[in-house]
Each structure stands twice: as C-alpha cells, then as structure tokens.
C-alpha cells in the first residue's frame, strides 16, 4: 500500500530575517505538516518569530488578517495567555532568547490552505530555549494560499523548513 505522507519541498537559509516557502500549497493535498528549525539572534523587544501566508504570486495575504490564540509556557515558570492580539499582520511562534543565536523549532499543521470558501487555519506547537508555545491561527481570507513566510525582527543565523503533504485519496 502506497504511503500518503509526501515530501513537498525543503528550504534552507542563513544570515537572513525571512524564509519564504513559496508554492508549497497545491490542490494535491488539503492537509500539510511544516517542520521548522533554526537559530535566531532575536530582537530583544520583539523576540517572537512570526508566520504569514502568501498567495500564488508569493505576496503576503493582508496585514490585518491574522487572529491567533496562544498559550506560552515559559522556562521561568510563567504561563502567558497571548490571545488578545486580533487582526494582526502575522501570527506568532515562540519567544526566543535574545543575544547570540538561540535554537527554535516549530511544527505547523495547515488545514485546507487552498480553500476559497474557508479561512485558513493553522495549529502550531513551538519550542525554544525560552519555552513552549501552542498557537491556533485563523487567517481571515478566502483567497487560496500558495505558501508561507517565516520572519523575525532579528536574524536567523540559520533556518530550515520541510513541508509534507498528506494525501486523502
């Protein structure tokens, strides 16, 4: 029996603030796993890398389309209920320690990104030396998504992503 988890593409970069995952979403799949790992030198005032979705022309899909609900479990023992930020320009991943490059990881589950009926929904679990974060994102657009953009106000000394599609037939 043929397997249904298929590698769509991999991406890598270094010494940059963004990583575009262009053209990863197609009509072949309606569910995706995206695995992200990297080292980030954070901007101390804005330490969370962010996620945006791209259209088929690799343009960002709206600056006020992102609602997210997250629960951040910091390594200092605090729980941060980061749910108040509706209509943002992007969704968040996990706070990364400032200073020299620190490790960060994220696992995104992307549901029906090609739908022109539904908004875009992403479930994410993120980890760094600063803690763990669970994030649910609703991107309020019915335009079909073509890709993702990972971004930081600091610098990714290295950043890697692997995208897998899950076939349903």
């Amino acid at each position, binding site marked *: 029996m043929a397997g*249904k988890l298929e590698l769509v593409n991999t991406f890598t970069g270094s010494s940059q603030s963004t990583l575009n995952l262009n053209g990863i979403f197609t009509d072949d799949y309606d569910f995706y796993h995206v695995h992200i790992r990297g080292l980030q030198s954070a901007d101390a005032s804005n330490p969370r890398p962010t996620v945006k979705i791209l259209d088929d022309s690799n343009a960002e899909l709206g600056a006020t389309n992102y609602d997210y*609900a997250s629960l951040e479990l910091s390594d200092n023992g605090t729980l941060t209920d980061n*749910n108040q930020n509706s209509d943002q320009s992007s969704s968040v991943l996990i706070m990364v320690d400032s200073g020299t490059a620190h490790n960060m990881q994220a696992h995104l589950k992307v549901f029906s990104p090609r739908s022109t009926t539904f908004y875009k929904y992403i479930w994410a679990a993120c980890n760094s030396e600063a803690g763990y974060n669970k994030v*649910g994102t609703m991107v309020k657009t019915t335009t079909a998504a073509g890709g993702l953009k990972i971004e930081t106000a600091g610098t990714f000394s290295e950043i890697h992503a692997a995208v897998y599609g899950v076939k349903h037939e």
Partner: protein
Amino acid sequence: MSADKLELIQSVEVTSATATVTLGGTDWVNTYDSYKVVITGVSIDAAEEIHMHFLDNTNAQVTSNYSYSFQRSSVSTASTETTVKATGANDIEIGETGTGTGAMFACELLLQDFNDATKLSSGMMDIVFQNASGEVSTETGGFFNTTAAVHKGLQFEVETGDNFTAGRFTLYGIGS
C-alpha cells in the same frame, strides 16, 4: 529513502447534510498499532459542539465510559484559557464551529491501542476552529475509554441533532 508508513484506510467527504460521519466499522483495518485521523473543512448548519464516540464494531458506543481533558485557547476579551474535561461522559467533546464567514473545524487525532482488548483505547488531539462567536480557538488534549476493549473506529456527530454540511474525514494506519 524508504516508503513512508502512513497508509490510507478510508476517506469520507461530506457533500450534503448528514447527522453523523463514521470512520472504520466494516472498513476498519486491524493490523496497525496506531492510527491518524485528519478532519478538515467541516461546517455545520448551526453553531454547535462536535462530539465523538468509539465504535464497538459497527455501532457507536454511547456509554458513560469516556474521559477526556484538553486546554482550549480562544481569542476573546471575556474568555481565554479553558480546561475542558469530563469523566464518565457519554461522548467526547472535541470542539465546535460557528456559521460565520470562513468558519470551519479542523483537527488531527492520534489513536492508540484500539485493537488490544486488554488495554484502554486512547488518543490525542490537536484542533483549531472558528467558534460560535467568530473567534479562533485551538485545543490540545487527550481522551480514552475507561473499559479495556477492542474498538473499530470513530463516529462524529453534531450536538442537538444538527448536521454536518461539508468536510473531509480521513483515517490512516501508521505502519510499523
């Protein structure tokens, strides 16, 4: 690179109003230790909770043997973090969806020990949806049946007799 071990068992697409969706039953394949369920693009004809039962064979087990707990995070000025939990419940609550613009329910479930009559069938869930207030909610948690038995799938239903109107429900076996 070896072939991956995620193997399709059954995919059900809802294209007209239906009260329940069943995965497994006569289509259940009992050769896997673990199973994955992916549900996406689900809409309902009224804003309601979605519930889940295990199948004993082909029938939904509506018994007071379900326990579950999950953390729900929502965008709201009034309600943010909620722990949803129950023991001895007749079903497993897994979330909801509203009827607002772009609303849908989506989740991934991992099922364990459904084929072992000596163990408790259990699972974990990662869920995201637009709730009845039009806000995004996300959940992470787990569930199990308190009686050790073989189970052969899942049945999903909408609370208070409303209907699913769209969605794809897919069951995979995770090969070893």
